């Protein structure tokens, strides 16, 4: 875990209100252990916004990192105004990683909105490891997509309004792919309603699923006890010293679907 001043290499809008930023962060990139981890970003020196902002690592190549972020409020707006050569201060790597598939599993990666970031990172790991996999990406509309719908290459897009890929939510292709594959393993990150649906589906069908969840974070390192998510069952991990709640920043952000509840 390091705090590092990261010089920005590039920062551009890749889809409507969705930006990608690449920066040099050799210490953190080197310490990074895999897809699912996040960093905690400080975008300015003043204290108008006292807290850092957590962002998943979207790619890491040993010296640089990238994030994919959506313009949401004050700090993501500040981020989008940064230019190459400017810097941000980042704390990381934080959190756990998606745990790896067994060889005979078929990973189905599901990303919704900016939940795509860790999923792209995981896709990269699949490719590097030569693991056959499918990927489903959901968005509200075509202008939020920056990847092409290529069913032949097992890349499936969905849009709520049908303007790109399949019409509807990620659940359509997901249910199909689960039916089509003998040993499916779901990895998902995205808005809470999507994760809720996937969790219920995976529990009902008894399919293993790992979900990367979000929560409001004060620190990212276990100091504030702010980032809790309710546990589904007793002692899953030792962090946060508690039975009922788990600290997303330490135990997560990736959980087995059966281990957590959404409120």
């Amino acid at each position, binding site marked *: *875990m*390091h*705090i590092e001043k990261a010089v920005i290499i590039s920062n551009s809008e890749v889809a409507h209100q969705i930006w990608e930023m690449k920066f040099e962060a050799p210490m953190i990139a080197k310490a990074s252990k895999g897809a699912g981890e996040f960093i905690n970003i*400080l975008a300015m020196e003043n*204290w*108008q*916004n*006292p*807290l*850092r902002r957590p962002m998943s690592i979207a790619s890491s190549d040993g010296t640089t990192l990238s994030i994919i972020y959506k313009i949401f409020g004050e700090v993501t707006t500040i981020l989008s105004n940064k230019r190459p050569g400017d810097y941000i201060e980042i*704390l990381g790597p934080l959190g756990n990683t998606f745990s790896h598939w067994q060889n005979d599993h078929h990973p189905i990666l599901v990303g919704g909105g900016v939940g795509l970031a860790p999923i792209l990172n995981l896709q990269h790991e699949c490719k590097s490891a030569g693991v056959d996999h499918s990927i489903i990406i959901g968005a509200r509309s075509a202008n939020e997509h920056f990847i092409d719908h290529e069913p032949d290459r097992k890349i499936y897009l969905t849009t709520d309004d049908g303007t790109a890929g399949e019409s509807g939510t990620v659940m359509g292709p997901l249910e199909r792919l689960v039916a089509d594959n003998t040993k499916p393993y779901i990895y998902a990150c995205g808005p809470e309603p999507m994760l809720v649906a996937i969790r219920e589906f995976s529990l009902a069908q008894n399919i293993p699923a790992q979900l990367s969840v979000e*929560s*409001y*974070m*004060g*620190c990212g*390192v*276990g*100091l*504030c*006890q*702010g*980032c*809790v*998510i*309710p546990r589904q069952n007793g002692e899953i991990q030792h962090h*946060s*010293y*508690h*039975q*009922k*709640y788990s600290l997303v920043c330490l135990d997560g952000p990736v959980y087995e679907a059966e281990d957590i509840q959404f*409120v």
Partner: protein
Amino acid sequence: MSDLKLTMGNIEFDNPIWVASGTFGYGTEAPELVDVNRLGAIVTKSITRQPREGNPPPRIVETPSGMINSIGLANIGVERYIKEMLPIYESLTTKIIMNIAGTDIQEYIEILEMVESVSSVIAGYEINISCPNVKKGGMEFGVDCDMTAKLTDALRSRTDRLIIMKLSPNVSDIVSIGQASQDAGADAVSAINTVVGMSISAKTGTSDIYTTYGGLSGPAIKPVGLAAVHKLYQKLNIPIIGIGGIVNGQDVAEYMLAGAQAVQVGTANFRNPGISEDILSQLETFISESKWPSANDMVGQVKTHS
């Protein structure tokens, strides 16, 4: 460096930069990012008699230059604290102040007696009196002089270690509560705990905090903390520990000028767990460039106009 030392009760602290309860865990959470032995003291998170799960999420939200929290005193309880934490503290050279919370006087007493009954290196206790007092229909101890005096007295008679009463700003007259603490034998008071606040998302129409109200902290409340410390300093003759919105060495200097002998860094730790070390260096630089021979010489020396 030696000009930062201070004494409170019979304890000598290396420097006045401490970390605040509930903002630094048990002091063991971020070893890569901070050398806790450089700090004057660690005030550990509030400990209750029984372990507490804390409140459901959402527990925190950012506000302009501040944040609101409603963690709900999530903690491991005094038994695990004694078993798991006290041994770790033996190996630290920084001072450990244990923060205690309870809903009636008996609970505070039990916790303190349990810790007193074992040998440990802790330097003293900070008493969180911003907890709802079940016996008094949920009003905080900290708003009532009599309750504060009784509680202080009960604890005082049971330990020779430092007793620091942590004052709430959510009162009509913080000085009278400080006075009650002093008269009942507290070694020091710390001020302030968080300010009651609320946050709403207009778009979703919902409260951002599960418990509706939470505690406001961070730079937004620095003026409130400074006023409290200055008022207390005018009337009390025990040391005051300043808390609220400290993020750099200059903020510390302001608190010391207002009357604080030491300070606690809270919310700022969330931004950077090692910030208290930076703050310590900034304070050293500030003093060396100032007219003040030492940190202690600054205490209470703010020039007022009237």
